[in-house]
């Protein structure tokens, strides 16, 4: 059976052909391909990892944003409440201050009214006395030469009047 007898020439050339093929591919073929394939696999792995990280970060960011919004809302309500409270407080304070001021003004007014009255009374008395003296002078000039006796009489009369008041 010639089919089962390996032929020397073919074995020789097979060695040569395979050696050449292996050398060429080992030198210029496989390393580049292996490097490329591995590099691409790494790149894809890295890409997936990156995407996962990005998604995680995005989720985190969203969560954080939500928490910020919630906090801000809380803050807002607090501020509003505070403002409300302050408003009332200011109004109260203002009212109180106004009342105090009003009271003070009234007191001063009363004080000044009293003073005025006293002054007015004093003035009035002086004027009245001066007037009375004048009148008496005019009345009495003719009748009473002694001015001193006259004014004493008038004084005593006025005192009586006062006592009557």
């Amino acid at each position, binding site marked *: 059976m010639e*089919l089962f007898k390996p032929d020397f*020439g073919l074995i020789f050339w097979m060695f040569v052909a395979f050696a050449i093929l292996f050398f060429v*591919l080992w030198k210029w073929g*496989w390393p580049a391909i292996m*490097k*490329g394939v591995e590099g691409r696999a790494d790149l894809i792995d890295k890409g997936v990892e990156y995407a996962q990280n990005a998604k995680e970060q995005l989720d985190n960011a969203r969560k954080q944003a939500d928490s910020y919004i919630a906090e801000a809302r809380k803050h807002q309500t607090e501020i509003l409440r505070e403002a409300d409270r302050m408003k009332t407080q200011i109004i109260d304070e203002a009212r109180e201050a106004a009342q105090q001021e009003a009271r003070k003004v009234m007191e001063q007014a009363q004080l000044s009214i009293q003073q005025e009255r006293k002054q007015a009374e004093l003035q009035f008395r002086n004027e009245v006395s001066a007037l009375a003296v004048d009148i008496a002078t005019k009345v009495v000039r003719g009748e009473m030469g002694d001015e001193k006796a006259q004014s004493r009489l008038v004084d005593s009369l006025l005192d009586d009047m006062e006592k009557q008041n």
Partner: protein
Amino acid sequence: MKKLLAIILSSVFILWALPCMAAEAHGGEEEGKVDAKEIIFEHLGDRYGWEVPFCHDKSIPLPIILWGHDGLHCFMSSKVEHGRTYVDGDATFRVAGADSEHKGKIVEIIDGKEYRPWDISITKNVLGLFIAVVLVIWSILDVARWHKRNGYKAPRKFTGAIETLITFVYDGVIRPTLKDRAMKFAPYLLTVFFFILYMNLLGLIVVFPGGANLTGNIAVTLVLSVFTFLLTNVIGTKHYWKEIFWPDVPLWLKFPLPIMPVIEIFGALTKPAALTVRLFANMLGGHMIILVLTLLIFIFAAMGPAVAGGMTVISVGFSVFMLLIDVLVSFIQAYVFTMLSTIFISFGQERGHDEGHDDGGHHHDKPVAGSDGHHAATV
């Protein structure tokens, strides 16, 4: 444009083939009978010169290179075609006839006797090998060039297909089996895979660039399995050799009579033999079936036109089916050869993970460190 070119090419081809076929038919009438066995073995075997398609008695001449009793002789195979004798200096050569023990091979005639010279002719099979080598180099360098030029982009079309095959074999077989040693042996194993695949597929093409029955030739498969055998044993680890000569079995199995070592050595030698025969027989079988199915037409031709016509339809149908099966087989056999080579090499690469209990478990941490150091040294 492509279509036009195809039409022109095929019409030229047919015009040129017709006279050839006519001559063939004429010759066939003269012989009268079809010698099926002869035709089958002629197609399966090697020959000087490559037959022109559809034209049995013309062939593309190929160089014959011989080392005879007086030195080197080179001439074209057309010189010894059709049983002619060729005289080159003092030496006379011819292709041995059917009754000779060197049937179909070139012989030197000295004093009327036939001697077989050292013959390294570029025969049909050798040229087929070179064609396969060129095609493999071209396809693989195409992928390599892509990776150099385009960085991490995904290749498409042919380049993508080849790369898919590469990763299929590398990720599917080589890496899971050899693990950290994968990169070391991948170049050899991938080369073997593509070489066998291309040789298988070229063998299925009927006309010129293909048609050489390469992987169905025992010399080719023998050389490939010898390479695997050498890689397994020459780069084999200490543990591998210990497993062969002093395996972990009861003493009586290995001491006075080395039963286990003999079995192990026999096993080591059987592996390449199995590789050789498996690929050779599978591809040879496939080729033989297709040849027989085609020849059925000619065998049944003697039984009248009706039988011959019916048989033609059946046998062409079966041939097409078998060829499709053979395309699958071509891939599977290349894959199986690569897979078995990987497994055999991985046997040779075994490291003693349980070396600790051999020396009584005294240094339980030492084998680990040792194997690590070994690994670092070899990678």
